[in-house]
């Protein structure tokens, strides 16, 4: 009884296995033939942390309808299937690395493989245990023409790299910007660099002139930025210029402040400009007033000043947030000439519609640099101009090149795009 049972179960078991491994049995029947795949190699995936390899071999026109199975092993005895793919699925262009590291046009079958995924290794352990790299054996089984061919076995190492060559384009860009920056700084210290006239600055003269004629004050609002912001720095330089004009024309100026540090700096600046205009006697301490460091309370207080004093001109220069809306509207209401300038995009629409002249974004920096001639401001502006110049040349030049290449040779187009591609 016992033996019968045993026999029966063995038969059932073997039948089961049989059914289960039907496919593999077929393939064994088919007799795996040996094949020499040309140039089959495993190389380290460049510029990575050390967990990937690239496997490649030459394309063979005769294998067009073939399927490939790629096997990896750590000891060339136990093989794990890493990938199964058709002939067309394994091309050199699938590997996403730029042209200066990899020729995408080569006529090869290529595949990138993450070894930690294939051998299901924990990344931490993997890197700890293989500091010098991870050796892998690989072979390819080609299936086609109702036959199976097994390739030769090759060996390769996945190792950690020290430089991301694929980010070379970025490094070059950073270097270019840095070098240009240092060249411009050293030149700016020696002599004055050219900045074109900013159209809005002429409007300042006009506004101050009108204020003098009407005998009404000018209100200058330096915004709610701190002294470290470029827009506030630019604003203070413009304030210096406005102060000079006002001192010359003998008009009155009022500057309400949000930030205590900006307040102290502005006091010095205005005093200096009155001295430079030769009117130190007209300078009064109450030109600059400190209001409060609270956005809405500041806006409400400035609104109060504008409604009461009914200025002939209002300047809004610097960093503004939502209060731009509250301020410009009241200024427009009292009929003042309004000149604004800010680098906050979202506030520009409100200034643009409610003011007579608006300095947009970088124009504010440029106005500050133009008036002050301060080497650091000027050189930063010059580097920005250089960046814009680069952009214009690249955008126009490469668009034309791409148009041409798209007609004649598409692979060049890919290479051109690689130059800017971020990885």
């Amino acid at each position: 009884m016992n033996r019968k049972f045993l026999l029966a179960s063995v038969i059932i078991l073997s039948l089961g296995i049989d059914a289960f491994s039907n496919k593999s049995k077929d393939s064994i029947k088919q007799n795996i033939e040996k094949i020499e795949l040309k140039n089959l190699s495993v190389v380290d995936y460049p510029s990575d942390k050390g967990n990937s390899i690239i496997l490649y071999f030459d394309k063979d026109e005769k294998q067009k309808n073939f399927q490939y199975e790629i096997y990896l092993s750590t000891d060339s005895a136990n093989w794990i299937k890493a990938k199964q793919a058709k002939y067309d699925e394994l091309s050199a262009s699938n590997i996403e690395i730029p042209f200066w590291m990899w020729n995408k046009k080569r006529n090869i079958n290529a595949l990138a493989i993450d070894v930690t995924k294939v051998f299901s290794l924990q990344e931490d352990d993997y890197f700890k245990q293989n500091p010098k790299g991870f050796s892998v054996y690989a072979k390819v089984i080609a299936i086609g023409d109702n036959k199976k061919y097994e390739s030769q076995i090759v060996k390769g190492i996945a190792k950690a790299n020290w430089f991301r060559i694929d980010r070379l384009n970025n490094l070059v860009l950073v270097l270019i910007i840095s070098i240009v920056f240092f060249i411009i700084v050293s030149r700016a210290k020696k002599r004055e660099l050219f900045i074109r006239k900013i159209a809005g600055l002429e409007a300042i003269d006009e506004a101050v002139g009108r204020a003098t004629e009407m005998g009404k004050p000018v209100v200058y609002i330096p915004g709610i930025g701190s002294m470290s912001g470029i827009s506030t720095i630019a604003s203070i330089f413009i304030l210096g210029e406005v102060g000079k004009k006002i001192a010359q024309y003998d008009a009155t100026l009022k500057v309400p402040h949000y930030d205590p540090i900006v307040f102290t700096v502005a006091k010095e600046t205005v005093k200096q400009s009155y001295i430079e205009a030769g009117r130190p006697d007209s300078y009064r301490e109450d030109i600059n007033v400190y209001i409060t460091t609270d956005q809405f309370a500041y806006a409400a207080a400035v609104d109060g000043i504008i409604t009461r004093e009914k200025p002939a001109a209002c300047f809004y220069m610097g960093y503004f947030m939502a209060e731009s809306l509250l301020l410009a509207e009241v200024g427009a209401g009292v009929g003042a000439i309004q000149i604004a300038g800010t680098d906050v995009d979202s506030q520009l629409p409100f200034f643009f519609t409610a003011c007579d002249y608006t300095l947009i974004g970088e124009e504010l920096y440029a106005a500050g640099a133009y008036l002050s001639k301060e080497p650091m401001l000027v050189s930063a502006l010059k580097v920005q101009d250089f960046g814009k110049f680069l952009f214009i040349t690249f955008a126009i030049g490469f668009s034309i090149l791409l148009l041409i290449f798209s007609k004649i040779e598409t692979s060049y187009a890919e290479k051109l795009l690689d130059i800017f591609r971020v990885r």
Partner: protein
Amino acid sequence: MNIIKKYIPLTIVFIFGIITLASYYVPHRASDEYLEWINKWENIVSAFALFLGMISLFYSHYKKIQRKVDGWGYSLFVYIGFFIIMGAAILSKGNISKEGKLTYLGWSFNNIFNPLSATMFSVLAFFIISTAYRSFKIKSFAAFLLFICGLILMLGNIPLGEIIWDKVFGWTKLTIGEIKDWIISVPSTAGRRGIMIGIAIGAAVTSLKIIFGIERGYMGKE
């Protein structure tokens, strides 16, 4: 003294700046490990930055109360608000809800912090309406273009606008939604991109200046 006051800080900024910059180009695990610990450090250091705000707010209102300046009584409410929330936080051990029920802290969030901060900014809606009425001047072609785009976006953003558009311009076979999408994704993208480039280079220059110790504004007075 200059060495500890000035040169060591400048060296710190240079070293951390350059190594962090380099980590962008180094795929090796060492770069990951460096980032791991520096990220933890930054997390801790920046947490303390908040106490700066606390000290300066407390100090300025303390001064107001001490000098009995106009409206000093309101300054007391700064402290009251602070202690209400801190008290609730301590009672609730920093948890907003426990087992699906609101804690004291959660209650304070919903009924004190939330209404205060949400209302502060919603006030701006009122000023939009008065700007539209009193100071939106279409005085040039540029301003007209601005208005037209604003108009299309406003109409495209509301269902009623879609209906109005279909009634008036239905014959064009274009929906307002399509035009709105096109404005955002084509001409306005060009405008925004033009602004972006200069700012991006400007930011890069600022980073360079900081790393090389040229920009020291954040270090305070010399």
